């Protein structure tokens, strides 16, 4: 057992399980000690990170292909594609061949930086902007990266929240840890039995609906930070809240706050890549961060291309060097292997921990993806120089069958790894 795990085990047993936390007289001391120990644990994990294998290389944009800032360059499906399998998958999605796929509304496929296929259900057009749901988390990871690139913040420093006192252990958790969802807060979403129990619906539409970050800041810490992965939308809301403070430090009103933040989001990211995105804001002027960005499939594909091209757009570095690798690498020392930072990743082995989230995109497990409720996906496969966007509507039952994920994998597998060679020429 490595030192990081021993330390984290001690932290866990010592502070969270033996009742010390119940004693109000000792809480301040415990918080201070826990915060320091948590930082030591994180430092140990950061040291372990260097031992991990490098992720698959990200293909560069061919000089022959224009960047899609204004519009996508189109091309036919490359000859290496298994057209029979590809067409069968599209028919199944759009012509109702498989009820477990729900309603497929917009599909866009980008190969070698060119749009090689798009299809829309009746009533939807290439301009129809649909909801991201949690794909917004991947956009928030990008926005934090942009702020790092602009030297507005350091992701290895504590993120904090004005609702927490200085020695609250939550205040010591760095930005990085929140984005990786190994923060340790008590948050229930994936395994919620009813919408009344789910923190996801409670924060957006229940008690938290007018001040989402206020709801999230009230959640208690129950695991030593850095050790336990749990899908925590609230961590991303708190990140959006902290990012907004870094960008707009003292807004005079909620309306001024959202106006200044929207302006920054546009000039720093959306306008740069030509994405006509509509982020939404709660009544406190906070952009939700974890959900609620509307965009078309073509524009979500542009966002995917920014990641496939390692955060570089038209020769300009938008995201810091290594930011895409941070997005697609599970937190070192975490007990999960299906989530990086703001992005889902293919598990390095098996079907995935703690949930079987494998998409099976082909021989290499290098794919990573933005995923949202009701079946929203931006899938990126570097080894095939491929992006597949799927927007639509699937019920919880349909999502639970996992067939949309399998379908995404099937579309990717129709592209042979050899196809990347022709795209790169």
């Amino acid at each position, binding site marked *: 057992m490595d030192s990081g795990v021993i330390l984290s085990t001690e932290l866990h047993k010592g502070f969270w399980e033996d009742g010390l936390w119940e004693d109000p007289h000792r809480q301040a001391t415990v918080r201070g000690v826990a915060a320091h120990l948590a930082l030591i644990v994180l430092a140990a994990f950061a040291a372990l990170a260097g031992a991990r294998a490098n992720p698959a290389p990200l293909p560069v944009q061919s000089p022959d292909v224009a960047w899609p800032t204004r519009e996508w360059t189109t091309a036919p499906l490359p000859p290496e594609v298994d057209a029979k399998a590809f067409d069968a998958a599209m028919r199944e999605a759009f012509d109702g061949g498989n009820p477990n796929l729900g*309603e497929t509304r917009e599909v866009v496929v980008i190969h070698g930086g060119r749009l090689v296929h798009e299809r829309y259900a009746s*009533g939807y057009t290439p301009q*129809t*902007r*649909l*909801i991201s749901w949690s794909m917004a988390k991947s956009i928030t990871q990008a926005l934090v990266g942009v702020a790092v690139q602009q030297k507005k913040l350091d992701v290895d420093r504590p993120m904090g929240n004005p609702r927490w006192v200085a020695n609250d252990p939550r205040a010591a958790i760095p930005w990085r840890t929140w984005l990786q969802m190994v923060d340790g807060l008590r948050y229930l979403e994936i395994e919620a039995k*009813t*919408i*009344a129990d789910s923190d996801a*619906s*409670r924060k*957006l*539409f*229940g008690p938290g*609906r*007018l001040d989402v970050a206020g709801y999230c800041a009230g959640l208690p810490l129950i695991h030593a930070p850095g050790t336990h992965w749990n899908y925590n939308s609230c961590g991303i809301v708190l990140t959006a809240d902290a990012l907004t403070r870094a960008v707009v430090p003292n807004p005079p009103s909620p309306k001024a706050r*959202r106006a200044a933040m*929207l302006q920054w989001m546009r000039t720093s990211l959306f306008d740069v890549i030509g994405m006509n995105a*509509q*982020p*939404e*804001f*709660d*009544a406190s002027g906070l952009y939700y961060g974890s959900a*609620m960005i*509307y965009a078309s499939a073509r524009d979500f594909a542009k966002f995917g291309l920014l990641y496939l091209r390692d955060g570089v757009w038209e020769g300009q570095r938008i995201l810091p060097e290594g930011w895409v690798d941070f997005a697609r690498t599970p937190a070192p020392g975490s007990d999960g292997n299906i989530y990086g930072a703001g992005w889902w990743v293919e598990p390095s082995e098996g079907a995935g921990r703690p949930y079987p989230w494998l998409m099976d995109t082909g021989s290499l497990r290098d794919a990573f993806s933005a995923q949202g409720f*009701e079946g929203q996906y931006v899938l990126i496969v570097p080894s095939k120089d491929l992006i597949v966007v799927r927007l639509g*509507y699937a*019920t919880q039952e349909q999502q639970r069958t996992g067939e949309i994920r399998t379908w995404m994998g099937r579309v990717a597998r129709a592209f042979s790894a050899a196809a990347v060679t022709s795209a790169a020429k």
Partner: protein
Amino acid sequence: MLGIGLAVAAWGGRSAYSTVRIGSAYVAKLTCSCLFVAGRTQQSCSGDYDAQAARLLSVQAGPSSVTVTALAGLLSARAEFEDGFGCHLVN
């Protein structure tokens, strides 16, 4: 026994109320964005909710807002659209 029965009923009632409260806000916010950001029709938008649950709610769309009422008007949720900022809940 009566005490326990009442407690269970109260808990069940609270949970049901909270479900309808969340459902109303959900439908108000999502319908507002569906109409004014996505530009879809109200009929298309109503397909995004469980039809059985939606029968408990009354949805009224104005020129730039959506109001949802439930439980015979006891409960209402309202979302407003502002150009450039999408929709947000106001109550």
